[in-house]
C-alpha cells in the first residue's frame, strides 16, 4: 500500500498561538480515514496546510507524492475538497457553482453530476443566496463527488444534512472507496465515522493522540459488563482494569478496560457465572474519553 497523505511533526502558529504542534498523520491510498478531535483541535488547519492555503511553519507534509505548497496547482487536479464553511456566490445558482468548481478542478462528468444532483434532491436552478445551510452543503458535496479524483478531502461535509441525505452521502463515500479512491473525512458525527472509516486519527490541541483502526482503538477503551454468579462476588474492586463497580452480593455491574478483559473474566469464573451481558464500547464513549481528557488537561 502506498501513502496518500503523510504528515510528520507539522507545526503551524498563528501569532503566539500554536494551532498545530508537531502533528502526525498518515493516510493510506484507498482507505477512508476519519479525522477527529474537539473544536479548535486543528483539523481544518491541517487540511488547509495540506491544500497549500496556509504555509506550514515546520515539519514535513507530503500529499499524493507531492509538496502541498510548491506543487499545489498540480496536486489540486487530483483531489476534491469540501470546506468546513461552505461559502458560495450569492448570485450564482447552485448548478453554476457545481459546474464551476468541477471545471476549475479540470473537468466534469456531466452524467455523474446530474445523477448526484438527483440523489441529493438539490434544485440547481436556485440562487445560492436563497439556499438553506444544508443545501449549500449539498452543492459543495455534489461538486466534489462529481469529479473523479484520487483523493477527497472532506471537512465536516455533513454538518447540516438531514438523516436521509446523510445516508446518500455515506453511499457516495462507499462508491468512491470501491473505486479505490482515498478519503480524508473530518467529522464530529460518530455514527458516520463508525460506518465509513477504516482508520481514524484523533487529535487534540494540535497533536495526534490516537491513530489506528477502529478495532485497535476499541481495545483502548472499556466494556460494560453486568454479571450474575452463584457465589457472592468478592474482591472485584481490587482487580486491575475494573472501574466503577457496583457489587450486590451475587450481582455486579462494572466497566472494564478492554485490554484487561481476559483476566477479569477468569477472575469472575471463580464465583460460577450464571448470566453475563457485555456492551461493547461505542465510539462515542471512546471520543468522550479523549475529548473529556482534553477538558481536564486544559484546566
Amino acid at each position: 500500500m502506498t501513502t496518500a497523505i503523510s504528515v510528520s511533526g507539522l507545526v503551524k502558529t498563528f501569532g503566539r498561538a500554536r494551532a498545530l504542534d508537531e502533528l502526525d498523520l498518515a493516510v493510506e491510498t484507498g482507505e477512508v480515514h476519519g479525522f477527529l478531535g474537539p473544536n479548535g483541535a486543528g483539523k481544518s488547519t491541517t487540511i488547509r496546510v495540506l491544500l497549500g492555503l496556509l504555509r506550514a511553519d515546520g515539519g514535513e507534509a507530503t500529499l499524493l507524492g507531492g509538496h502541498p505548497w510548491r506543487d499545489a496547482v498540480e496536486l489540486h487536479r487530483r483531489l476534491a475538497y469540501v470546506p468546513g464553511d461552505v461559502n458560495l456566490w450569492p448570485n450564482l445558482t447552485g448548478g453554476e457553482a457545481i459546474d464551476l468548481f468541477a471545471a476549475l478542478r479540470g473537468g466534469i462528468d456531466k452524467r455523474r453530476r446530474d445523477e448526484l444532483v438527483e440523489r441529493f434532491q438539490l434544485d440547481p436552478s436556485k440562487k445560492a443566496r436563497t439556499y438553506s445551510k444544508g443545501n449549500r452543503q449539498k452543492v459543495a458535496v455534489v461538486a466534489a463527488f462529481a469529479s473523479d479524483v484520487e483523493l477527497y478531502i472532506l471537512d465536516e461535509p455533513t454538518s447540516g444534512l438531514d438523516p436521509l441525505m446523510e445516508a446518500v452521502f455515506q453511499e457516495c463515500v462507499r462508491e468512491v472507496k470501491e473505486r479505490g479512491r482515498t478519503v480524508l473525512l473530518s467529522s464530529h458525527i460518530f455514527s458516520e465515522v463508525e460506518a465509513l472509516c477504516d482508520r481514524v486519527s484523533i487529535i487534540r490541541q494540535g497533536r495526534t493522540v490516537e491513530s489506528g483502526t477502529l478495532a485497535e482503538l476499541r481495545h483502548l477503551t472499556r466494556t460494560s459488563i453486568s454479571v450474575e454468579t452463584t457465589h457472592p462476588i468478592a474482591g472485584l474492586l481490587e482487580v486491575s482494569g475494573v472501574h466503577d463497580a457496583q457489587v450486590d452480593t451475587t450481582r455486579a455491574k462494572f466497566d472494564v478496560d478492554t485490554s484487561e478483559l481476559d483476566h477479569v473474566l477468569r477472575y469472575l469464573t471463580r464465583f460460577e457465572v450464571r448470566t453475563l451481558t457485555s456492551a461493547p464500547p461505542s465510539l462515542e464513549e471512546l471520543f468522550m474519553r479523549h475529548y473529556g481528557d482534553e477538558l481536564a488537561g486544559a484546566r
Partner: protein
Amino acid sequence: MSAFTGTARLTRLALRRDRIQLPLWILGTVLLLWTTISATREQYPTEEDRLQALTTVAGSPAVLILRSAPTNTSEGGMLVFQILTFLALLAGFMSTLAVVRHTRQNEETGRSEMLGAMVVGRYASLTAALVTAVIANAVLAMLIALVLVGSGLGGAGAVAAGVAVGAAGVSFAGLAAVVAQAAQGARAANGMAAAAIGIAFLVRGFGDAFGEIQANGYTMDNAWPVWLSPIGWAEQVRPYAGERLWVLALPLLLFAGSVAVSFALAGRRDVGMGLIAARPGPRSAKRALLSPLGLAWRLQRGTLLGWAIGVGAMAAVVGSLSGTVEEAYRDNAKAAETIAKIGGGGTSNLVDAFFAAMMAIIGAMVAGYVVQALMRPRAEEAGGPAEAVLATATGRLRWLGSHLAVAVGGATALLLLAGLCAGLVYGLTEGDLGTHLADMTGAALVQLPAALILAGVAIAAYGLLPRLAVGLAWAAFTVSLVLGQLGDLLGLPQAVRDISPFSHVPAVPAVDATAGPLLALVAVALAFGIAGMASFRRRNLAL
C-alpha cells in the same frame, strides 16, 4: 414586545462597533474644513481679493460645478463657496455607509439573524442604524459650528453651515435606509447609495454652473436643478449670506419620507432577502463562466455596468455643455489667470480647461471603480468562496490576475466610453465631429495611468496586509483625491500635492500630453502591482 424592542441596545452596539470608524470620518471632515479656513485666509486675505476671485469664477462652469455658487465676499461666504458642498458630500458617504453597515451588511454576516432571534423587534435594527447616523451627523454639525466659531467666523453663519451639512448627511441616511431594504445585498445597496450621492453632487453642480449671474457680477440666481439635490439644499441655506433656515425643512422632509418608506419596506421583507424575490437561474453553467477569468467577469460585471451608466451619462452631459461653456467664456477673456489659480489646469483656453477639469473628475470616478473592483478578491477571501476556488487547480496568480484584468480592462473601457460619449455629443452639437471625438477620447484615456497607480496600491495592500487592505486602498484613494483635486484649495505645497497620482495627469485637451510622466506613472503602478502579486503568492490565505 413591540416592533422597536431592543433598539436602544442595538444602537449602543452599533456605536460601539463604529467607535473608530465614525470618529475618523467626522474628524477627517472637520480637518478638511479647518485646513480650508487657513488656506482661504492666506490666498484671499482681503475683501478685494475675494471679490475679484468670485467675479472671475462666476463665469466658469468648471469651477462652479466643483465648488458652489458664490453668495457674498465675506470670509465666511468665501469659505462656503470653497468647501460647503464637499462637506455635505462627505457627510453623505459617512451616513450611507453607516446605515448599510448596520442593516444589510449585518444581515449578510448572519449577525442580525442571531439578534433577530433574541428579544429584538422587527424595526429595531433599522431604527438603530438610523439613530446612529443621526447622532454622527449631529456631532459633525456641532464640530463644524465650533471650528467656525473658533476661527472667528461665528454667528448665525457658523450654526447654519454646521446644520446644513448635518441635514444633508441625515437626508442621505434616509435614502440609504430605503435602498438597504430594496437592494439585493449590501454591496448593491452601497453602490446605489453612492450613486445617489454622486448624482446629488453633480445635479447641484449643474444648477450652480448654469445660473444667471446677477448685476453685481458674482452672485447668481441658481438654475432649478440645485433644488433637486440635498447638497444643493445645503447651499441654499446660505450660511453667512442671509441664512434661510426654512430650507432645512427640505432635507428633514426627505428624511422623514424615506424613513417612512423604509419602515414600510422593512415590514414586508424577509431578513437577508431583497424586496424583489430572487428568480431561478440556469441549472448549469455556460461555457464562458468556467474559468477564473470568466468567474471574475461574472462577479464584477454588475459593478462595471453601474459605473458605465454613471460615467457615460456624466460624459454625455459634459459634452452637451460645450456651447453653454463657450458662451459663458466669450465676454470673460481675462478670467484665465484666476481660473488657473482655482483649478482649471493652467491654460488660456477656458473651454478646454473646462473639459480637462471634467475629465479629471471622470478619471477620479474611474479610479474609484478600480479600487472597488480590486476589493472584490478580498471579499472572496474573507469568509467567501476563495478558499474552495484556490483548492482547485487554479493558481493564485491566475486567480488574482483575473480580477486585475477585469478591473484594468473595465477602467479602460469606462474611459473610452467617457471619451466617446463626450466627443460624440460635443461633435454632434457643435460640428467637427472627428476632431472632438479624438480630443475627448485622448483627454479621457490620459486619466488611465493614475487609475493604474491606485490599482497597484490596492493589489499591494491586498498582497501584503490583506486584513487592512480595504481600509488602506480607500485611504490611498481618498488621500490622492484630496491632495490632487483639493490640493490648491487647501493651499498645500506642490511637493505634497505631487504625492497624488492625479497631480501628474496632464490637463488634456488644454495642454498637450507628454509621454514621460504617463510612462512614469505606469512604471510605478507596475512596481506596486508586482510587489502585491508576489506577496500574495507567498502568504497564508487570510480567511
